[in-house]
């Protein structure tokens, strides 16, 4: 019977556990016992026993071995020596640290942004709070939840045996008029919500209580206010509970005050009991029960809807139900540009890692001589490896720490910029450097240690002294040189791609803006008036208010100009279907245009010159024929045949009811109707005298030292003291906010592109400097034989640029493909970012030449005798 052999893998594992000097005895003991057991209990049982012993040895001994190795690595002497090595070459050490820091900072910032955006509601780490939507089966568009559906769900879909424990309805209003009468009027973001909402969100009032279901206090509905409103209007008076405020014309009694850090859904400050009117525009929030899932909740809610009568405005027989985590539903609405920025930052991270790898590979190869001498003088392979790895560990630790710091700073700056110019950041989103970012930084650093330090360390510790000293460290380095050239090529490819995409994006944005705003925005103050139905039930009421208000403002001695408009100039506002009255199919199939309803003074205020016909006038009012003015883009794109003047157009201002008007004039409106997708947008101007919706903007300029807002308030005080003016901003602030998103994204994208190029150049410079140093002897021989230094310089420059050509070609191709996917063919003929296609390769080549110029020039000018001596 053949002698039983233990499992070889277990034997290898056990062998790893002991030092080499004790390994044989340990394995021998194990094998002896294994043989005995195999004889008495069978091979299978003996094999299992052997595995148990091997694992026990690994658990008991491996940590000790690693700790021992670590102690030798971080022995004070080794650490001092590694630090000295780094300090001796400060430039490459700083460059490697900075490169790694950049590679870590970019994704740290983006990951911090992403984790904040996708964060959970306070007190809901498992995302049990869900948003319930109805949507059309065919089109996928969301359908409003009618009140009776919500009631059916509340009655049948919540409870112990159901997927939802509770459900609430809410109806947001971006602006409610609060106050008036005795108190000053303000516009606030307000929410009508059933009382369950606050229990689902886990918010506790800091004063008073949450209102109950259908609560009425002496016939007055209840409301809650936020702490900042309490401070602003009541000076934190404890007696606020029980006081009343007028909200959208109706008195509400304050029953509670909510904390200032609460603002569901997005910086809302007043909450009222629901006003169940004819408008079915409800949103529904639910809380999953125990182990309930969105899928089960969806099925239960859908079955309830199916049993109800067909919903109004629904085109399908039974609309579908969607249940998803509220924060996910909210995040889904946020810009997809965030996702693009995350991808770009990961690209940058790859470029940075490649740069670090090429720098460290070059360092490792250059120091092979030094390593060979260390080994010859008695150093062990382990000590040499420990020294090299420790150098990279120190660099990686510094790079990681710096990267996290820079990433945190960039994240906070980005969030501040967004909060200042773009959107209100929801109260539950917190942006910081969390454990995913730290984990990423440590992982990247670890990879940098492995790739850029481990491989050279292993190779260096195996170097042969004689061959290394004889061949001047050229022997066996061809593999390293090819690897370095490949890495540089990859870097150039990635950075060229990034530069191309961001260059086109920036150029497109600049061209759009250059062709955009040409009207005078300086000194213009803007505000918003909401003429709600409860105070202004008819269009005549609204017109009277608007006329009296505008006249009062213009009559003020400090006001130089004033106007009203439904949409501010430069803003993309009301997109409506506009078609020719004679066109077949009617307005329902007409393409869209930007529609503004203005008073006649708008044209002179913003310098809109008429090119044909006339502008709107005060006589276009009352029972006279409805008129319209169009812009030149409308004429170019929609009226290709025949004259513009006198043509009848139909505007779909309300669904199903076309508003017919005759074109009386054509204007140039540079930027008033903004560009869209690089094209000038067709625009239509109607007159407020003939159509006045509920929301209008007021714009005015005043003499220096006069407050426009004060003039407006004074004018309104005598006409309607209950009417607040909201969204008071200068025209420049409005335009800044509108452009801030694209500016910010272009800045970030452009920064990434430039950083990627810089990182590539760092790698290119490091590799080329190493190659030139290695070729000094060869160049010296050629010069000694009569080669011209200019020719030598030219040849080496071209050789150094070889990986750049390839990388550039690949990068430009990838960039063009990517742009086609992202942008398609939507850029109009007026806008063609040709400059980017020319500048990107020019910049990459020029920068690459600069990167390799210095080492190439130095090597080509070296004294042949010195070069031959030094080798």
């Amino acid at each position, binding site marked *: 019977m053949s002698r039983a052999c233990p499992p070889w893998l277990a034997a290898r594992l*056990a062998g790893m556990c002991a030092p080499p000097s004790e390994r044989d005895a340990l394995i021998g003991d194990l094998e002896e016992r294994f043989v005995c057991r195999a004889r008495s209990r069978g091979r299978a049982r003996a094999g299992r026993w052997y595995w148990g012993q091997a694992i026990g040895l690994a658990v008991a001994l491996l940590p000790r071995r690693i700790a021992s190795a670590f102690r030798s690595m971080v022995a004070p002497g080794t650490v001092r020596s590694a630090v000295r090595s780094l300090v001796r070459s400060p430039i490459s050490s700083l460059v490697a640290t900075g490169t790694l820091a950049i590679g870590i900072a970019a994704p740290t910032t983006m990951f911090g942004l992403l984790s904040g955006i996708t964060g959970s509601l306070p007190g809901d780490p498992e995302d049990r709070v869900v948003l319930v939507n109805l949507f059309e089966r065919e089109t996928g568009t969301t359908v409003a939840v009618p009140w009776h559906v919500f009631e059916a769900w509340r009655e049948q879909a919540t409870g112990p045996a159901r997927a939802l424990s509770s459900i609430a309805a809410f109806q947001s209003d971006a602006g409610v008029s609060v106050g008036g009468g005795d108190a000053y009027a303000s516009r606030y973001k307000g929410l009508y919500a059933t009382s369950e909402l606050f229990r689902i969100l886990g918010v506790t009032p800091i004063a008073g209580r949450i209102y109950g279901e259908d609560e009425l206090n002496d016939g007055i509905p209840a409301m809650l206010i936020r702490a900042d409103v309490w401070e602003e209007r009541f000076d934190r008076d404890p007696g606020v509970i029980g006081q009343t405020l007028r909200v959208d014309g109706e008195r509400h009694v304050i029953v509670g005050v909510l904390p200032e850090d609460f603002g569901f859904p997005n910086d809302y400050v007043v909450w009222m009991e629901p006003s169940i009117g004819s408008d079915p525009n409800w949103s529904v929030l639910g809380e999953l029960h125990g182990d309930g899932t969105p899928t089960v909740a969806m099925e239960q809610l859908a079955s309830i809807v199916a049993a109800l009568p067909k919903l109004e405005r629904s085109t399908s027989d039974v609309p579908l139900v969607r249940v998803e985590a509220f924060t996910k539903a909210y995040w889904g609405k946020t810009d997809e540009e965030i996702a693009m920025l995350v991808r770009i930052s990961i690209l940058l991270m790859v470029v940075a890692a490649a740069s670090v790898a090429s720098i460290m590979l070059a360092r490792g190869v250059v120091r092979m001589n030094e390593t060979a001498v260390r080994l010859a003088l008695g150093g062990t392979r382990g000590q040499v490896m420990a020294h090299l790895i420790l150098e990279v560990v120190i660099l990686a630790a510094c790079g990681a720490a710096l990267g996290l710091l820079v990433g945190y700073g960039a994240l906070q700056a980005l969030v501040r910029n967004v909060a200042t110019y773009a959107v209100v950041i929801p109260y539950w989103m917190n942006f910081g450097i969390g454990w995913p970012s730290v984990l990423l930084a440590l992982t990247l650093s670890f990879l940098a240690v492995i790739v850029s330090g481990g491989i050279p360390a292993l190779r260096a510790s195996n170097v042969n002294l004689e061959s290394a000293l004889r061949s001047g460290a050229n022997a066996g380095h061809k593999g390293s040189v090819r690897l370095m050239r490949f890495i540089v090529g990859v870097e150039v490819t990635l950075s060229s791609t990034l530069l191309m995409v961001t260059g086109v994006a920036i150029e497109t944005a600049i061209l759009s803006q250059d062709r955009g705003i040409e009207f005078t925005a300086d000194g213009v103050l803007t505000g918003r008036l909401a003429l709600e139905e409860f105070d202004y039930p008819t269009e005549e009421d609204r017109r009277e208010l608007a006329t009296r208000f505008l006249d009062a403002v213009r009559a003020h001695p400090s006001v130089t100009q004033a106007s009203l408009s439904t949409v501010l100039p430069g803003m993309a506002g009301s997109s409506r279907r506009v078609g020719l009255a004679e066109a077949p199919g009617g307005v329902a199939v007409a393409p869209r245009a930007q529609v503004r309803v203005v008073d006649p003074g708008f044209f002179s205020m913003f310098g809109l010159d008429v090119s044909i016909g006339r502008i709107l006038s005060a006589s276009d009012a009352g029972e006279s024929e409805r008129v319209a003015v169009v812009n030149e883009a409308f004429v170019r794109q929609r009226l290709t045949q025949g004259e513009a003047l006198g043509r009848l157009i139909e505007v779909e201002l309300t669904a199903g009811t076309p508003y017919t008007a005759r074109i009386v004039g054509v204007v140039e409106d540079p930027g008033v109707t903004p560009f869209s997708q690089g094209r000038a947008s067709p625009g239509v101007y109607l007159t407020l005298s003939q159509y006045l919706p509920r929301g209008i903007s007021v714009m005015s300029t005043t003499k220096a030292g006069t407050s426009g807002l004060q003039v407006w308030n004074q004018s309104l005080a005598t006409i309607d003291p209950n009417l607040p003016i909201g969204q008071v901003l200068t025209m420049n602030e409005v335009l800044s906010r509108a452009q801030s998103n694209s500016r910010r994204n272009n800045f970030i994208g452009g920064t990434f592109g430039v950083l990627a190029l810089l990182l590539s150049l760092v790698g290119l410079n490091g590799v080329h400097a190493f190659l030139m140093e290695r070729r000094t002897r060869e160049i010296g021989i050629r010069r000694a034989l009569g080669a011209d230094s200019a020719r030598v310089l030219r040849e080496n420059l071209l050789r150094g640029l070889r990986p750049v050509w390839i990388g550039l070609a690949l990068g430009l191709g990838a960039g063009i493909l990517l742009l086609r996917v992202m942008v398609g063919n939507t850029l109009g003929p007026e806008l063609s970012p040709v400059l980017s296609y020319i500048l990107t390769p020019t910049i990459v080549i020029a920068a690459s030449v600069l990167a390799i110029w210095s080492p190439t020039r130095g090597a080509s000018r070296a004294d042949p005798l010195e070069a031959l001596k030094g080798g």
Partner: protein
Amino acid sequence: MGRNSIGEFEHLVLLAALRLGPEAYGASIIVEIEERTGRDVSQAAAYLTLKRLEGKGWLVGRQETGGEDRGHRARRCFVVSDEGRRRLAKSRAGLMSMWAGMASELKV
């Protein structure tokens, strides 16, 4: 447990080494303990204890060539040193003193 006192398992290892004399090495010591006490002994525990005792100077180790049943691998044999013997004797005296008159208590 201080450096100078003998742990329970150390006690067993030293006694096994004493019993086995020149044939005391890792595997044989483990087998001796398992047969006499009926307890399973892991290789890791034995290895660490033998290293520790050798480090204290209570065991003296030497490398020898192994037989076929261990694939001719080397084996490390141990001999209890004079200091080891002295410690064992002292420990025994202490234990015997504690055990005096206790047999009837445990009905042994």
